[in-house]
């Protein structure tokens, strides 16, 4: 009895457990073939099938098709072997909706150890599953967003102490630091020193209070270059409302900043320019007016912007603006147009105007920029220069006239010298001769010698006058430059001088003589004078030697005549080319002292130079050039 009671008691307990289980769980029992032999109410409720519809069916009735075959075969393999299977299964209800159940299948075995029946206990986890799905989806979304953000922005995360805990690739790229160099550092590593302490303090105060900070920051990269970032720092707070971490999202605005700086610089240039820089539209209405324009025209910007530019133009010149505007509309610029404009006070100013077309991005002309410069001073300077030039021209004219007069006087003087000065000499010489002829026999020897001396002196003075006149004539003579065969000129000169002088022993050596350029008549005179000098000053040599050649001096062809004659003392070389200057006595060597002066004057008129090198009793060499020496 006791066992009956016990049995009853335990049956009751089982029954209680079963009802408790039925309350709590979805229960189904199937036979070893999988045919449903029992379902509780909860099973019917969730599957929306009636018990009658379920019993005798297998579980395929609620198969959702969600799980792969392997999953199902694994399930059957597990319970077929008498082991408990546990897992989550997605089922399909009668109305086509899906539900998730956390499932435990317990196989009950025969005494032979074969499954007798399977008891499946399930709990509805549809909501949990949905939440999980949602979470998974939103996590994926976050990951996508982060990817997108990393693609787009420079991202860094710091802890509340400002230590960098995360940087993305873009941060590394722009800062030129590697991730390892950045992590654990604070942002001082990229501090450019550009911002004030107040700026930095304001940033930290803002984010420490849990507020978003936004601003533009100039940073320094590892290589010392600077970059600008548009920065948003978002503080993330913990449950106590204290910042847990800071996420900084930045965009590179270096180019923008550069453009801004350049624009600001241009604006500063425009503002500070002394030139008036004015913007106007195609109708001539002023759109901008800088300080230079204020200074130049006297109107403040407020009185000009929106007004027509024509108020600056004098009444007689209004057509100029029409012409300028139509030129601008055609896309042509107006450069350095000198004109007159009117100031606010009514005074006129000389200005140089440059007008350029302003185009929009499509290249269409939408207005004009006009730069006007005050050229009053320049005009005055030009006027002064013009005046000076006129004065100078006048003075040159006057001086030329004076010179012409002096020249004419000199000509008249030469003419009169030529005619009148020689006549008395002729008389002195002629009558001395007449006395000698007619009364010679009656005169003592001494008297005849005196008369000879008188004649000699008169003739010498005649020679002096002739040479002097020849010398004076040189300056008046026109230069007639043409190519000259120097060798031919020298040989013809030698012939004229009586080459080869049968009564003397003269050895003439002629070197290579390049062609030159000059006045043939004048240059012939040069060669005559130099060669006859060489002959004269070698006249006392038993064997005279004369060398004629050409060498280079400072890049210029230099002709020379060298002799082995009596030479001269180089101490007196500076007197050599003076008129009537002689280094030898007349008794020793005949001459008037004009020959070398003539040579020098001719050479100078050709733009050349003449000089000599000599030693007493060791010959002389005369050099001359006919062109500028390239090196001084």
């Amino acid at each position, binding site marked *: 009895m006791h066992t009956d009671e016990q049995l009853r008691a335990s049956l009751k307990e089982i029954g209680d457990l079963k009802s408790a289980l039925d309350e709590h769980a979805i229960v189904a029992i199937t036979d070893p073939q999988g045919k449903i032999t029992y379902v509780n109410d909860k099973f019917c409720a969730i599957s929306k099938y009636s018990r009658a519809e379920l019993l005798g069916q297998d579980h395929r009735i609620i198969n959702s098709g969600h799980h792969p075959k392997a999953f199902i075969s694994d399930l059957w393999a597990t319970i077929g072997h008498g082991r408990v299977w546990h897992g989550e299964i997605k089922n399909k209800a009668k109305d086509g909706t899906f539900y998730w159940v956390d499932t435990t299948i317990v196989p009950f075995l025969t005494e032979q150890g074969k499954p007798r029946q399977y008891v499946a206990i399930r709990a509805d986890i549809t909501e949990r599953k949905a939440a999980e799905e949602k979470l998974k989806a939103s996590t994926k979304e976050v990951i996508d967003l982060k990817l997108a953000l990393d693609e787009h922005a420079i991202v860094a995360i710091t802890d509340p102490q400002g230590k960098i805990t995360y940087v993305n690739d873009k941060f590394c790229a722009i800062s030129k630091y590697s991730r390892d160099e950045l992590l654990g550092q604070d942002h001082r590593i990229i501090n450019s020193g550009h911002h004030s302490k107040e700026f930095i303090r304001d940033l930290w105060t803002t984010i420490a209070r849990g507020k978003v900070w936004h601003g533009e920051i100039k940073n320094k990269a590892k290589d010392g270059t600077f970059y600008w970032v548009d920065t948003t720092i978002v503080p993330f707070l913990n449950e106590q409302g204290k910042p847990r971490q800071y996420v900084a999202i930045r965009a590179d605005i270096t180019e923008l900043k550069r453009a801004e700086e350049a624009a600001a610089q241009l604006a500063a240039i425009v503002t500070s320019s002394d030139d008036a820089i004015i913007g106007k539209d195609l109708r001539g209405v002023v759109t901008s007016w800088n300080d230079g324009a204020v200074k130049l025209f006297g109107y403040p910007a407020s009185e000009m912007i929106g007004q027509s530019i024509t108020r600056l133009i004098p009444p007689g010149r209004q057509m100029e603006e029409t012409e300028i505007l139509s030129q601008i509309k055609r896309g042509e610029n107006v450069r350095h147009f000198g004109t007159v404009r009117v100031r606010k006070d009514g005074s006129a100013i000389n200005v140089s105007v440059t007008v350029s077309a302003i185009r929009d991005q499509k290249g269409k002309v939408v207005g004009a920029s006009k730069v006007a410069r005050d050229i009053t001073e320049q005009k005055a300077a030009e006027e002064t220069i013009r005046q000076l030039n006129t004065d100078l021209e006048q003075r040159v004219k006057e001086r030329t006239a004076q010179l012409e007069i002096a020249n004419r006087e000199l000509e008249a003087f030469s003419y009169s010298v030529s005619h009148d000065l020689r*006549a008395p000499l002729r008389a002195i010489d002629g009558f001395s*001769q007449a006395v000698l002829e007619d009364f010679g026999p009656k005169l003592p020897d001494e008297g005849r010698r005196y008369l000879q001396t008188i004649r000699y002196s008169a003739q010498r003075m005649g020679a002096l006058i002739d040479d002097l006149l020849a010398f004076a004539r040189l300056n008046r003579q026109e230069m007639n430059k043409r190519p000259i065969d120097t060798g031919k000129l020298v040989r013809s000169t030698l012939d004229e001088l009586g080459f080869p002088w049968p009564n003397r022993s003269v050895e003439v050596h002629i070197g290579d003589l390049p062609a030159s350029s000059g006045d043939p008549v004048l240059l012939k005179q040069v060669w005559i004078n130099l060669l006859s000098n060489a002959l004269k000053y070698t006249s006392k040599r038993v064997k005279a030697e004369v060398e004629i050649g050409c060498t280079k001096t400072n890049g210029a062809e230099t002709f020379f005549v060298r002799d082995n004659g009596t030479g001269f003392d180089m101490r007196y070389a500076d007197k050599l080319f003076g008129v009537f200057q002689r280094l030898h006595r007349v008794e020793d060597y005949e001459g008037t002292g004009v020959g070398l002066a003539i040579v020098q004057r001719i050479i100078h008129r050709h733009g050349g130079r003449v000089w000599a090198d000599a030693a007493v009793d060791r010959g002389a060499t005369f050099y001359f050039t006919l062109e500028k020496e390239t090196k001084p």
Partner: protein
Amino acid sequence: MNDPNAVELLLVEDNPQDLELALRALRKANLSNRIHVARDGAEALEFIFCEGPHAARRITDCPKVILLDLKLPKVDGLEVLKLIKGDPRTKMIPVVVLTSSKEQSDVVESYQLGVNSYIVKPVNFEQFAEAVHDLGLYWLLLNQPPKVAN
């Protein structure tokens, strides 16, 4: 057809010393016959064109040569030369300019006006005498003057 007493040589010279020396040189060269002397340009022209004191002279009795100084009182030598050479009746008369001047302008102008010879009087008397002798000999004795139709 020529008057045997006709003047053979007209010497135009203002300077008395030069004149005397020239005459002396001509005389020494035996060329002193039938020389007429004019002391300035005006006198020379009167003689040549048979005016004033020479109105009785026939213009066809031309001198065989005229020795002409350039620098002359009243009418200068170049002017005289121009008138002689510009007149068909006298332009055939040989004119020798005998002057102190070596000025190129004088030489060029003389030749442009048709002078037959240009001689610069040298200071040296011997050369002067020689020049006078030579030109007298040439123009008076050797040169065959063209026949001038009356």
